[in-house]
């Protein structure tokens, strides 16, 4: 009988007090002695050569400490593709790209200085649509693409705008289409959107004259920041220390490297004074990274009995000016392209295309919300073409354990179950129940969509954890993974307390991440944290116990196998004289005569992703997935055909999460993700003018969900088929909750109105237009 039970319980977040009272520190809260403030001069053009920069007037301004232009910082950065300039060097690539940076004693002075700088540009032809950018003779966003360094699994096409072309070939798609009774082909489109974190990108950098670089930053990936900075600047890693306090929302947009090189380089020019940059909300939209735009063409061949025999997919990503994570999003979406279904013959081309838009980066779901909109709409459209119920059609093709994915992976027996997710969602939303279609003059409908995703990461990524036993018997856990609202530290504290059988109040998880001290982790991305940090933490607990037992065995004179660590003690069960508080072993064991033995107790745990391989460059075949998390979303909507308003009445969701470690935090993740998905489904979009300038770079005109826009009802049903190699059986779900919200709503809109939508956001005006067009067609028929 366990005395302490935390796993599976809704224990309060361990950071709740700090966050609710405002004592939690974020990067922008930090004030360092001598700190300077940065303002940026940004490009007004989408594509232009920089002819001349005149900073002479700005330099005269009292309080200006450093002015930096691209010419002085000829570095290129990038996680998968080394293409990103800190400040535009010879030309600007998008409206809002930083051209000159000023560090000054105050923000006011920096801003005045920026206004005094004159830049002369020569405009170049620009390209804004990824389809146009792929055409012969299109303006090139990066003329030197063939010289750029890139990861081995990225395939750029020199002298074009193609930053990566991922190919997937399974079976024989031509033969498959010949076997098909019905072929359905459709196109889908989504604009660029933004992550809209509450905290905008914030970095403080310091490059001391002795070569030491210190960074405080709002980053999801402190170790990646350190690594990429080291590679880009040619500075050894041990000279770089990256500190990340609490993060005010990441959603992928703070993964990798962003503005850290800029503040560090400004600091170097300012003689080593710390330099701070806080992006304004407008800059968050225009200048920092966004989610890529997306175009898809999907062609599906199906037998009359509902079996899909072939699918050909083309995904074209509007990466904007720099490739950043975009090239790997392209790859991840490419290898997951079928969605959670087994299809014998698949051909997918997923292509990252440079344009003169703001640059794309990771965004919660890493390409999966985008392509699932296409594939899960397509599932409904194909089912309709053969007259089959869309639920039955999905179940018939479901990727169940033992079935083969598009990359040739045979799904493990303990893989999750998409069919169970679909079935419970269908049940809870009352699928097929006879209900009035019209309520108060408005049309009601229901839609479902399934989903899957695996962490998108290199095959060998790893995590580690350090668990220290303190002098009073409490323990302190250090991890490299960031707390950005998702609650991983709380879940890990639950695991530690459960494993050590001690009160959770005596477990501390260090809040700050600091690369000089924190154990390594690859990044806080990809819904991998609980799985990977969890495995590393469990390993750390094992090591800590092992060390305790080794010392105690000497002290008690018993074999260490007889010893148990629990309830803040180490003891031999049933022998009260062979028992000792852990506190007495924290720094060393002590024999009765005073001699010391052992030493400070510290468990170092690690975990490396298992069983992943590279994918074949020509066919995409291989093992990309640490785990697949499956799920399904159901939406019930009400459509006002007079105004085009779509109201989401109810969302029903199920994910096979393996095990719910903290049901309360889990619910928060689910609801939050769905709300974010509804924003993208119904209102969020970048609107540009014909010159590539963003017209809605603020929260007045870039709409996100507010309280009035969220559904009346959420139903979440956890499915718990444990994954054997996971801590307590868990699978990641941070991103999945936000996938397939859009297609579920679009499918429900069809159910309500009989109108098919292929483009998001499905805002009031767009839905009104679509309904009106349909009305006109019906009238003229």
């Amino acid at each position: 009988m366990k005395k302490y039970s935390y796993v599976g319980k809704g224990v309060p977040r361990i950071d709740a007090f700090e966050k609710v009272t405002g004592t939690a520190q974020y990067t922008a809260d930090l004030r360092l002695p001598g700190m300077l403030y940065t303002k940026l001069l940004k490009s007004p053009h989408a594509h232009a050569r920089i002819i001349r920069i005149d900073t002479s007037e700005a330099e005269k301004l009292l309080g200006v400490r450093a002015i930096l232009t691209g010419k002085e910082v000829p570095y290129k950065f990038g996680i998968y593709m080394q293409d990103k300039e800190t400040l535009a060097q010879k030309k600007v690539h998008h409206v809002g790209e930083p051209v000159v940076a000023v560090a000054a004693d105050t923000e006011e002075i920096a801003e005045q200085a920026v206004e005094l700088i004159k830049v002369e540009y020569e405009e170049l032809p620009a390209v804004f649509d990824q389809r146009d950018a792929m055409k012969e003779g299109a303006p090139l966003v990066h003329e030197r693409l063939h010289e750029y360094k890139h990861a081995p699994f990225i395939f750029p096409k020199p002298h074009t705008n193609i930053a990566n072309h991922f190919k997937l070939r399974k079976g024989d798609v031509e033969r498959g289409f010949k076997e098909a009774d019905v072929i359905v082909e459709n196109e889908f489109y989504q604009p660029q959107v933004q992550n809209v974190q509450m905290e905008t990108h914030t970095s403080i950098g310091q490059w001391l004259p002795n070569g030491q670089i210190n960074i405080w930053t709002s980053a999801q990936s402190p170790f990646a920041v350190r690594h990429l900075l080291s590679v880009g600047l040619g500075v050894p890693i041990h000279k770089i220390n990256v500190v990340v306090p609490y993060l005010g929302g990441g959603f992928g947009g703070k993964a990798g490297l962003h503005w850290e090189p800029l503040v560090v380089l400004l600091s170097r020019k300012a003689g080593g004074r710390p330099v701070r940059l806080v992006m304004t909300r407008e800059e968050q939209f225009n200048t920092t990274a966004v989610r890529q735009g997306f175009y898809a063409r999907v062609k599906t061949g199906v037998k009359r009995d509902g079996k899909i025999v072939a699918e050909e997919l083309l995904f074209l990503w509007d990466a904007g000016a720099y490739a950043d994570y975009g090239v790997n999003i392209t790859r991840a979406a490419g290898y997951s392209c079928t969605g959670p279904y087994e299809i014998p013959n698949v051909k997918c081309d997923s292509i990252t295309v440079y344009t003169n838009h703001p640059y794309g980066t990771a965004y919660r779901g890493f390409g999966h919300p985008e392509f699932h909109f296409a594939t899960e709409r397509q599932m409904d459209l194909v089912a309709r073409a053969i007259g089959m119920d869309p639920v039955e059609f999905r179940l018939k093709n479901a990727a169940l354990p033992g079935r083969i994915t598009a990359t040739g992976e045979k799904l493990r027996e303990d893989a999750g179950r998409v069919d169970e997710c679909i079935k419970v969602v269908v049940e809870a939303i009352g699928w097929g129940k006879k209900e009035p279609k019209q309520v108060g003059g408005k049309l009601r409908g229901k839609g479902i969509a399934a989903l899957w995703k695996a962490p998108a990461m290199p095959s060998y990524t790893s995590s580690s954890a350090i668990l220290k036993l303190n002098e009073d018997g409490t323990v302190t856990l250090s991890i490299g993974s960031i707390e950005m609202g998702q609650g991983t530290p709380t879940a890990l504290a639950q695991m530690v307390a459960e494993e050590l059988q001690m009160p959770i109040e005596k477990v501390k998880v260090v809040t700050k991440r600091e690369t000089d001290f924190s154990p390594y982790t690859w990044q806080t991305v990809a819904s991998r944290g609980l799985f990977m940090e969890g495995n590393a933490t469990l390993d750390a607990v094992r090591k800590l116990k092992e060390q305790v037992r080794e010392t105690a065995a000497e002290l008690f004179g018993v074999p260490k196998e007889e010893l148990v660590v629990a309830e803040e003690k180490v003891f031999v069960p049933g022998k009260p004289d062979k028992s000792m508080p852990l506190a007495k072993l924290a720094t060393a064991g002590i024999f009765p005569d005073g001699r010391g033995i052992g030493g400070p107790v510290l468990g170092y745990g690690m975990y490396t992703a298992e069983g992943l391989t590279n994918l074949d460059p020509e066919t995409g075949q291989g093992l990309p997935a640490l785990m697949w998390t499956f799920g399904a979303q159901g939406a019930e909507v009400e459509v006002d055909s007079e105004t085009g308003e779509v109201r989401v009445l109810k969302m029903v969701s199920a994910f096979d999460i393996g095990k719910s470690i903290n049901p309360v935090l889990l619910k928060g993740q689910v609801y939050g993700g769905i709300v974010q998905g509804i924003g993208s489904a119904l209102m969020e979009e970048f609107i540009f003018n014909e010159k590539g300038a963003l017209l809605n770079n603020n929260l007045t005109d870039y709409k996100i969900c507010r309280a009035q826009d969220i559904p009346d009802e959420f139903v979440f049903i956890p499915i718990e088929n444990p994954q054997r190699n996971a801590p307590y059986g868990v699978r990641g779900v941070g991103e999945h909750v936000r996938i397939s919200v859009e297609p579920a709503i679009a499918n429900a809109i069809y159910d309500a109105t009989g109108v098919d939508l292929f483009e998001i956001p499905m805002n009031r005006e767009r839905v009104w237009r679509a309904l009106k067009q349909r009305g006109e067609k019906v009238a003229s028929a």
Partner: protein
Amino acid sequence: MPLPKFDYLRPQTTEELAATLAEHGADAKLFAGGTDLIVVMRDKLVRPKYVIDIKGIEELRELSWDERRGLTIGAAVTLSELIASEVVRERFGALWKAAGTLADPTIRNRATLVGNICNASPAADTAPALLVLWAEVEIVSANGKRVIPIREFFKGVKRTALEQGEFVRAVRVPNPPEGAKEDYLKWGRTRGEDLAVVGVAGLVANSGKKLVRIALSSVAPTPLIVPEVEGVFKGGGSVEGQIDKAASIVVEKISPISDVRAGKEYRLHMAGVLTKQILKRILGAS
């Protein structure tokens, strides 16, 4: 993001305010709630040398009502104060409702009604209600005082009838005719806080002669009243037919633009939809 440098002045009386404006008018901006001013200053769209805060003037905090004069809303009265007023809620329903749709509670705690009309946005939420309620604007300067109907106050996008050196002391709203019914409907891009894609206020009364007034925002360079609507209801025919006719007149008389918030076609359509909805409500037609 820092604001451009300015001198902050805080007069204590309207006389002092008038004198300050007379001296600095060309270089000064009046500051009440600041919810419009601070935004344009931050964006460097205006760089006033002087920012004159009117919130220290007790007289401008007046929010009063009496049987004869109706409602007086001083220039420093916030929308939250207006919404909290029982008499506004009971007697000036369209205005009360319009005030409650403007932005969100945090903004309404600062923003003033007079500021909303002086900003003269085509989308001003309180303007259509003031138009159908026949409100008057009391304008003061060092040279004296004048009162003009709200209809004559809006002169263009972000332009008003105020001359240099003048300020609005208060908006006066006469009591609506006996038995009047009024309402305001706003259509945005979302259910959450938004600027109006179209806003429509309506008022009907039947005391002696039949009154029907419709005014709109976001469909022309200024908020506007459509007086032609009234004629429709003087003639015969079914109420439904009259309402349809009124809506088509509204759509004819407005001139919305296409912008980042909505297309012209959608605005025209929604102006018709909202006009019908509001007339049905206030005429009691099903």
